């Protein structure tokens, strides 16, 4: 038995479909591109700056955490980059550098890595970071203030959701649905261009990188709840379309809610999870304190996720347990 060749001995199955985490991350970033490009076009170099800083800071935080915790380096999986990118999509183009650094720290380190890294975070890291920032430095998310120096060719330079919240639906009358869809509204760098986000979202759903059940039920939840409110008092509560195409809704629908780790994987739980997020979003917007409730709605849905995912089909040959 001398001169034996060395063969690879491993275990079944011997095939793999070729999917991977890195691939998933890159396609997510690709899907964000249409919305981002519009943001760059509208807000110019400052937007490019915020995005670049956010992506690199997120990756550096990940690296720093890996090193500090003496764990294998996981920057290569692209997940940190996605977190940085999605976070920056929600920021105004004028966000100061320290906000970006703090935000990525909160997302990558607090939101993800202290829970054990990829796959172990109970909440969406970006939602965690944005929620904390809103509570601590709310001013940064006051888009009317932050973008005051921009003079863009929009129907109105107010943030639609704050306008509705403070002055009733008529304040947002200037915006037609098509304005909103085409991104003619102020907001986060990558959050305003509805059509771009939808194109990206459809891409992700078709390719199976996000779970369509979550995104579609999220949308259904928003439309249904908004419709109820809207019919009850059309002057106070915005229409379903306004809710759908303003604020962070579409980023949340396609980039936050379906985040793997903090969302369910079974069919009915996915639907319930999406619905919850949708309903909560409109509830917080209409009767809560915040103009945009999406972030908190996601966190609430994340909280329910482990419970929801217990609803699952019976296993084959299941034997009842005492």
């Amino acid at each position, binding site marked *: 038995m001398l001169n034996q060749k060395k063969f690879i*001995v491993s275990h079944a199955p011997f095939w793999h479909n070729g999917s991977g*985490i890195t691939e998933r991350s890159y396609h997510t970033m690709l899907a964000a591109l249409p919305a981002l490009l519009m943001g760059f076009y509208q807000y110019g170099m400052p937007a490019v700056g915020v995005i670049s800083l956010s992506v690199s800071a997120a990756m550096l935080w990940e690296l720093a955490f890996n090193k500090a915790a003496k764990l294998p380096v996981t920057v290569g999986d692209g997940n940190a980059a996605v977190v940085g990118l999605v976070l920056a999509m929600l920021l105004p183009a004028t966000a100061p550098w320290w906000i970006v650094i703090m935000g990525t720290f909160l997302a990558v380190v607090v939101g993800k890595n202290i829970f054990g*890294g990829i796959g172990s975070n109970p909440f969406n890291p970006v939602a965690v970071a944005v929620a904390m920032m809103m509570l601590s430095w709310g001013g940064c998310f006051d888009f009317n203030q932050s973008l005051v120096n921009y003079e863009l060719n929009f129907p109105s330079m107010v943030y639609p959701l704050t306008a509705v919240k403070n002055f009733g639906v008529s304040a947002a009358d200037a915006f037609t649905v098509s304005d909103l869809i085409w991104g003619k509204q102020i907001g986060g760098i990558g959050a305003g261009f509805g059509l771009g986000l939808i194109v990206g979202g459809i891409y992700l759903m078709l390719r199976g990188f996000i779970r369509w059940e979550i995104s579609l039920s999220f949308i259904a939840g928003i439309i249904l709840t908004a419709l109820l409110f809207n019919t009850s008092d059309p002057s106070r509560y915005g229409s379903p379309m306004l809710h759908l195409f303003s604020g962070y809704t579409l980023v949340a629908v396609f980039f936050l809610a379906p985040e793997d780790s903090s969302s369910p994987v079974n069919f009915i739980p996915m639907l319930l999870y999406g619905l919850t997020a949708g309903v909560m979003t409109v509830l917080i917007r209409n009767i809560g304190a915040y103009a945009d409730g999406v972030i908190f709605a996601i966190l609430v849905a994340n909280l329910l996720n482990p419970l929801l995912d217990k609803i699952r089909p019976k296993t084959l040959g299941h034997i009842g347990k005492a």
Partner: protein
Amino acid sequence: MIKRSFFGLTKPRFAYESVNGKSLKPEKISMPRSVTLFCKAPYKGNGLLTIGEKVKTGQKLVLYGDSEGYVISSVTGTVSSVSPYIGDFGKSYTAITISAATQEETEDVFGKDPADISLENAKKYLAFSPGAPALENFSGSDESQIKTIVVCGVDADLLIFTQQYVMSSRSEDISKGISILKRITGAESVVIAIPCNGNAPGSMKNAGAVGGASGAEIREIRSEYPAALPHMIAKEVLGQVVPAGKTWEEIGIGFFSAEAVASVGQAFSSGRIPVSKAVTLIKKDMSKVLIEVRLGTPLRDIFDAFDVKLNEKDRIIIGGPLTGAAVYSEDFPVQPDTDAIMVQDAESVSPVSDYPCINCGECVRICPANIPVNMLVRFCEAGQYQGAADMYDLYACIGCGLCSFVCTAKIPIFQYIRLAKYELERMRLTEEAANA
């Protein structure tokens, strides 16, 4: 290899190999210079065999007494070595190597006396015949547990057509085998599982010939993996779900490959124990050759004969791509249940990683047993096997391997599951021993 399709909304489809009524002719190779036969008994020295002892083709070789298993020599020659062999999960065997002589002599085991056709004789002589008939689960008495015998004319894994070939080419042996099995085991019904080929007239006709002659019922199996795995056949064809943690024998079903049944038929009608095995050889480029070799033929001989060149870091797999087992040596022999030999180029060896589960849920959605694999794998990774069994249905796994195939994090999930079952079994045995 089947890759993820561009659109991820649909589940991947895994179509079974279909011979579609084509008549296959197995290619034979020249007589091996030596054969190695694995006896189920753990190694305890040479036992009753002596090195240099002459044996005939078809002769039964007993190592340490009848109770501990036996092998049937597949060549005529002399015993050249008896050595230990450690298989998967540390299971130990004894490898008996026989150098073949040029002159072949075949041993007649049974007379032509119909009285020789008995369950006892079948157990005594046929456990090592091609197809490895699972006879140990039958007892001669009337309260034999097994009511239904399923004859698999389908191959459980992808790319393989060994059993389909046997089904279509050896109907006479199979008919005989079925009648004999029915008689000696007292099974109430026999079901023949054949591939569902829609418009392939050949297979159905052949199966019809078999079924008609032996009073067996013919049922078609969906042509998509894992429909031909025993658990799935039990559920979809017989309408009996094997409860998690139980064996199919415990609910009264016995599975035989078509080849095993043919071996029984052939053995009792010729008085000799068959020693050649049909095998699908799957080459690196996934082209397939049907071959017929003596049991115990080293893989090396087969690779030489069919021009399969192996390099460092390639992979040799006994069985199919989803459920097979990799072996580390070209000296590994063809066993009675070796239906396929697959070689994989170093470049197509699929990577595994030590990444944690990212909870993408692909595994959950593909698992035919509805197991919450995403949770199960966390418990298994943490070594919490009991928790995995109690809360996340470890024992419901039917062993299809699809979860590992689709895992985004490339976790060797299926291996974790097998390890978990193995560890729990070990713990149970230790506990029993301590309590005894």
